[in-house]
């Protein structure tokens, strides 16, 4: 695969550049909070950087809880395709038989 064409994000520099632009956008958005006058529908919106913090914390909490859910919800991919233990042990006489 050495001769393969280099694509946009094969170069780590490009990823770095993209992330830097993204960080800059985030910073500008927080600064805009002080510049733009907002009409407020709820008291919490008055809090400093309410939306950015809520978005960030919300998503981290989401991922943390979801990862924790994996500990008890995750099963093998073919979980439902496998027969249950009761299927295997079926002995004769376990099904309805007419006389």
């Amino acid at each position, binding site marked *: 695969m050495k001769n393969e064409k280099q694509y946009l994000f094969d170069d780590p520099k490009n990823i770095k550049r993209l992330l830097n632009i993204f960080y800059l956008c985030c910073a500008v958005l927080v600064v805009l*909070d002080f510049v733009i006058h907002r009409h407020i529908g709820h008291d919490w919106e008055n809090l400093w950087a309410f939306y950015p913090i809520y978005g960030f914390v919300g*998503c981290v909490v989401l991922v943390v809880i979801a990862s924790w859910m994996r500990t008890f*919800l995750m099963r093998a991919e073919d979980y439902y395709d496998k027969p249950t233990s009761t299927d295997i042990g079926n002995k004769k*006489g376990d099904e309805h038989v007419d006389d």
Partner: protein
Amino acid sequence: MWMTEIPPFVAFFIGALILLFTRGMLRSAIMLAIPIISALHLMMMPEGIHLQFTFLDYQLTPYRVDKLSIMFGYVFHIAALIGIIYSLHLRDTMQQVSAMLYAGSALGAVFAGDLLTLFIFWELLAFTSVFLIWARRTERSYHAGMRYLIIQVLSGVILLAGALFYAAEHGNLEFGYIGLDSMAGWLIFIAFGIKCAFPIAHNWLTDAYPEATVTGTVFLSAFTTKVAVYALARAYPGTELLVYIGAAMTCFPIFFAVIENDLRRVLAYSLINQVGFMVVGIGIGTALAINGAVSHAFNDVIFKGLLFMSMGAVLHMTGKINGSDLGGLYKTMPKTTILCIVGAASISAFPLFSGFVSKSMVMSAALEEGYDWIWLMLLFASAGVFHHAGIKIPYFAFFAHDSGIRANDPPNNMLLAMGISAALCIAIGIYPQALYSLLPYDTGYNPYDATHVLAQTQLLFFSALAFVWLNLKGFYPPELRSTNLDFDWLYRRAVPSVLQPMFSAIWRLDRGLRDVFKLRLYTYLRYFSGRNDRLSLLLSQNYPSGSMAMWVAVVLAMYLFLSFIQ
């Protein structure tokens, strides 16, 4: 004019019939022509009742056009056309015919003016759409389709029971506001709720949609749940319970979506999340909230269709759909990547994309009516939907690690269908007034004020920042090949694993008891016959055939005698 009397579903049903007898280009042309002609016809329809007749003392109204129904009528035509273009490459009569019938049934349901007509189309929706799942022709899809069909038909049966109660209470079958103050109201509510994927009744959706065919899922995602949303908006606007149900629907699926590996199942969970916003809007019930719910349904059909189409394109071209198997596809599928990102931006409600102009109405209405906690939940769900549908879907399919797959962009018809959807997403986002003019109420709402735009952009960018941070730190849950248990575990595992041994035990007991009884009976008979062994009498085992012959002769003699008497 006689033309006005014909409801839109008739065109689709006749079209489906014609498809059976045509092939190739002619069939494609007919499939494309039907939604276009039917939509043009619908645009000329004035509001009002266009078809009505009496059946068994009840007035049936199969064709009623008003602001609410026509909105869904339009979007179903758009969805049908896009879906048909997307599936033009198919050579599968079963799928093409059932998709046509399915779209027709959805149109029949939204223009139904009475509960009996609604029930008929409600059931037809189930029976026609299940073939889109079975058309995958795998064992998994067969079983998933069966479960889907059972649950959908159950919803229909409950609806019929509710309709009968309603008829008994009101003496008519009119489908209008119903409310929750009667038995009929509750039954119909539950029937709608099952089709709307209310929590704990939601697994038919996440179970069946990802098992359907590439093109089938696109049709499925458009119609069934939106018919249910329409029905709720018609019969239960302002029902407070819906606010809480809807808020739950927006929140819980996003957790499952984050850990799900099958990317079409991620979208199925996100579909429930989006329907949740609509249900909240209907529950709040103000003009703004209903407008928000209806317009969000309209937009969702298009952007969710676009996302399902882009993932369908990935499945079609690579044969894989699990996040763990994909990655790096942007290199050779650049068009699909861009179209998918447009869909992702729309569902995440970025300003200038369609989701923003409709979702913000529901959020504003929640705040206006003082549902503070609900508003916070919706805000969390908005951040969450961006997280799993907006970032996770494009990221794991097209970027992330390079899977080494070098699949090309899909056939042109698929790209065209996705292109139309993407164009609509952006057009509605930029010029929402066109959509607003179709809405049931005139609220003069403007989504593009500095407050909304800034708040939403901040929320989304910092959700993205969370994703970036978690990913760089390695905290983000990796895509793993797995099945995640959900409520369907109860009827796919728990109940069968309890019932199976239980019935097994019952049959064993039953068999044992019968054996004991038969043995007893046999012993008694033996006993009596043993005692009467030497007698030529009734209960003797060696009962001589001579005496039987004698008794037959006696009976015959009696007959002869009796025949002479008269």
